[in-house]
């Protein structure tokens, strides 16, 4: 076993040889190279795709600059979310307070851009310098007649999960603010952000089944859809970490049942569609769903088989934000004939890790909140061919001469749904079997060793 800081040992386990439960849900060790982010980050990623809302970051310029259009959450219409608005607090504001500046900025932006709602992200120092962001928002909302909401996202207030909760709290205030009749066979999709157009794929499947998607929260989102979301009969929660708090609140308030789903991989996508069909019942709906699943699966299977031929027995490491995505990826990789040798997440909980243990092969390393040094060691020790992760993991994989697939903000092709599984296969295949690795020292050595076996 490689060296791990004592304080971290409980956050790593190996299936088969370790029987203890993984310790998680704890703050990162101070001084670690954590891959985690903060409350603001969580709130921002959840609300950001609402394209006809104003997103104003109240604080020094950095938080607005680093989140400016970096996530490919696509919109079919307005694109207000892709601009960067900041109160750019300066030293004199820190001394005298930023409330007046905030109010002026808000009013000016509302006049200029005529949004349908406004979110004001209060970052680290807004509260510390005594700004009452709630009061400013209430004051402006009273004049403009649409929701102007403070999103309390001081980075130190917790983890990214607390940011998701802050975003859900803001969304909850908008849901139900207009009256609308309940449509038959109606659902909301929670926790899909339309990265690379994924919400469009998912919505299209439901439409073809004859199911009405009232709102997608928040992919290709519009304020009016969020307002009507209470009229749906079922909430589907994808990306378990981010939107579960909202689903629970909507259940309390409106009695709307909710179910966890995933749209990554053939099995999980099919299950997510059947879940809805079974919920509403009826032979016709079930038949339509079965037909859709069959047709879509048949369309993508040849591509999967082609890729599988080259990928069988190749080994993968997975390090993602939420554990629920890791479950899907373990299954999707298996479908490609690949073995998941390392799997971890930034924010998984105890149940998540127990579930991971149950679905992984023996000898798999399971890790919570890892750092680059550990991750690189795990990858080499487990001799993986592929790392799946986000922006900060990509160059680590490449330095090791290991293939990479971005399953985070920077994916450029949709990975959701049946068609997404096809894209995923192609991407993994193209990266793992790239001739570039023959030129990389470590891989070239391995290829030579294989050839002589």
């Amino acid at each position: 076993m490689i060296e791990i800081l004592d304080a971290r040992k409980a956050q790593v386990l190996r299936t088969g040889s370790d029987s203890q439960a993984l310790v998680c849900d704890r703050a990162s060790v101070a001084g670690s190279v954590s891959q985690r982010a903060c409350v603001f980050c969580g709130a921002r990623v959840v609300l950001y795709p609402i394209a006809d809302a104003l997103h104003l970051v109240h604080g020094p310029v950095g938080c607005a600059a680093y989140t400016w259009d970096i996530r490919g959450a696509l919109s079919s219409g307005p694109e207000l979310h892709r601009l960067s608005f900041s109160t750019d607090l300066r030293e004199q504001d820190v001394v005298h307070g930023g409330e007046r500046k905030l109010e002026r900025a808000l009013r000016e932006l509302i006049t200029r851009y005529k949004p349908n709602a406004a979110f004001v992200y209060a970052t680290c120092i807004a509260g510390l310098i005594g700004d009452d962001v709630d009061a400013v928002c209430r004051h402006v909302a009273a004049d403009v007649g649409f929701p102007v909401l403070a999103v309390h996202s001081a980075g130190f207030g917790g983890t990214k999960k607390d940011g998701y909760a802050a975003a859900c709290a803001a969304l909850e205030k908008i849901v139900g603010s207009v009256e609308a009749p309940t449509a038959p066979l109606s659902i909301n999709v929670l926790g899909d952000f339309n990265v690379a157009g994924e919400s469009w794929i998912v919505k299209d499947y439901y439409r073809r089944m004859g199911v009405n998607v009232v709102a997608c929260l928040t992919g290709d989102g519009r304020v009016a859809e969020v307002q009507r979301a209470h009229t749906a009969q079922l909430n589907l929660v994808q990306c378990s970490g981010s939107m579960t708090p909202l689903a629970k609140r909507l259940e309390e308030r409106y009695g709307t049942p909710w179910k966890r789903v995933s749209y990554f991989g053939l099995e999980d996508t099919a299950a997510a569609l059947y879940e809805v069909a079974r919920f509403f019942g009826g032979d016709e709906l079930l038949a339509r769903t079965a037909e859709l699943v069959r047709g879509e699966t048949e369309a993508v299977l040849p591509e999967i088989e082609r890729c599988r031929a080259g990928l069988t027995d190749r080994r993968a490491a997975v390090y993602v934000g939420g554990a629920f995505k890791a479950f899907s990826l373990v299954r999707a990789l298996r479908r490609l004939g690949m073995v998941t040798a390392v799997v971890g997440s930034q924010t998984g909980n105890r149940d998540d890790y127990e579930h991971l243990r149950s679905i992984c092969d023996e000898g798999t390393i399971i890790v919570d909140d890892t750092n680059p040094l550990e991750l690189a060691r795990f990858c080499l020790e487990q001799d993986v061919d592929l790392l799946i992760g986000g922006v900060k993991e990509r160059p680590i994989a490449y330095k090791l001469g290991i293939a990479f697939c971005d399953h985070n903000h920077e994916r450029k092709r949709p990975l959701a749904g049946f068609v997404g599984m096809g894209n995923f296969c192609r991407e993994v295949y193209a990266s793992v079997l790239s001739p570039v690795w023959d030129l990389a020292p470590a891989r070239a050595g391995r290829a030579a060793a294989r050839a002589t076996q």
Partner: protein
Amino acid sequence: MLLRHTPIEISARGALTINPAKTCQPVGAMYAALGIHKCLPHSHGSQGCCAYHRSALTRHYKDPVMATTSSFTEGASVFGGQANLLDSISNVFALYDPDVIAVHTTCLSEVIGDDMSQIIAKAEREGKIPRGKRVFHANTPSFKGSHVTGFANMVQGMVSACATRSEGPRRHVNLIPGFVEPSDMAEIRRIVEVMGVRHILFPDTSEVVNGPLTGKFRMYPRGGTTLADLTRSGDGLFTVGLGRAASTPAAKLLDTKCKVPCEVLELPIGVRATDAFVDTLRKVAGVHVPEALTVERGQTVDVMADMLQYFHGKTVALAGDPDHLLPLAQFLADLDMRVLYAVTGTPTGPRFERRMREVAGGDVVVRQGPGADLFLLHQLIKNRKPDLLFGNTYAKYIARDEGVPLLRMGFPIYDRVGHQYFPIVGYRGALRLLERMLNVILDQQDRDAPEESFELVM
């Protein structure tokens, strides 16, 4: 059109920044610290700051960027971050074994009022800093200055903590390269080596953030100024700082602290600024300019002459850091091009504006500091469209909406490669700028020319 809402009429905005032409201090401090060998930058603030800065630098360089964080919690924001920093120092040395930890503050720890010097001294007293290792810091409040100021403060922090004057002989020249790419730092080093000048360059991010694929993950890549060299900077004969905004504080401090005289020059972008750099080195080190450099210069001027008809009269808009914009504007003026607008989000003194008018002419529109953002630049461009635009990746929205070709320069560049490996400083760098501008201008001419005047030889 992504920027379809930008109105052509420019009105005053006091309270609001739209599409900033800057970012906050800590990212600059983190980048500067990466230029010290076996140094681990440490962000004293919330976890997100560190994650954002690492992500931004990773996107820009497509290389791993290592840094640690104090991971502030609610408690730290009430009781202060001392305990977090002390724990961090212990953990970082135990876990990652760097030679140096370079701590920078954030808006949060600044507002709380954590006293960095006092906390680091306490860590020293409590034996948390192993023998031979070093912890230094820079105050980088995000509500002052910009990423450039953060870089400048961290470089000054290096001098403050490490530079020491001994009784030994003074033979080398200190070089402070400014907030430039690793490729530029390497080129500055090459020029100095060609001239045969003994030197210490700090910081130096070459082969740190543009490392090779080796099949290994190195927590500490090969590059970077060593702690020993940083210490010896106090024994310098002279300091040449490049870029006023990024290098003046460190150069000045070396003078007051260790009595190393200094001169701060513009970044050596373009022929004239490189001439000034080479000439200063010649004088302070008492060397001759070698033939090899004279040839490089001659080749660059030769291309300027060969192609002058294509540059003449072309108009340009500039967005970027002040240290880049001034020498670039001079270079463009030497090509008979005309700078219409120069915008930087970094607050600079009136000298910047004065100097910009000197080199670019009295009509140039100069905007700096709060309110000088890419939204404003877009409005200016709507009023009069330039032939070329220099800016970072975020200028591509304007380029696309207005049909102006963009030449990428500055931070961040998320959508192209090249800046990591090919310098824009020195005579060779000037040659590269010429090539890039010509490619844009001539490709456009080839695309748009009517068939009868579509030229083979250009």
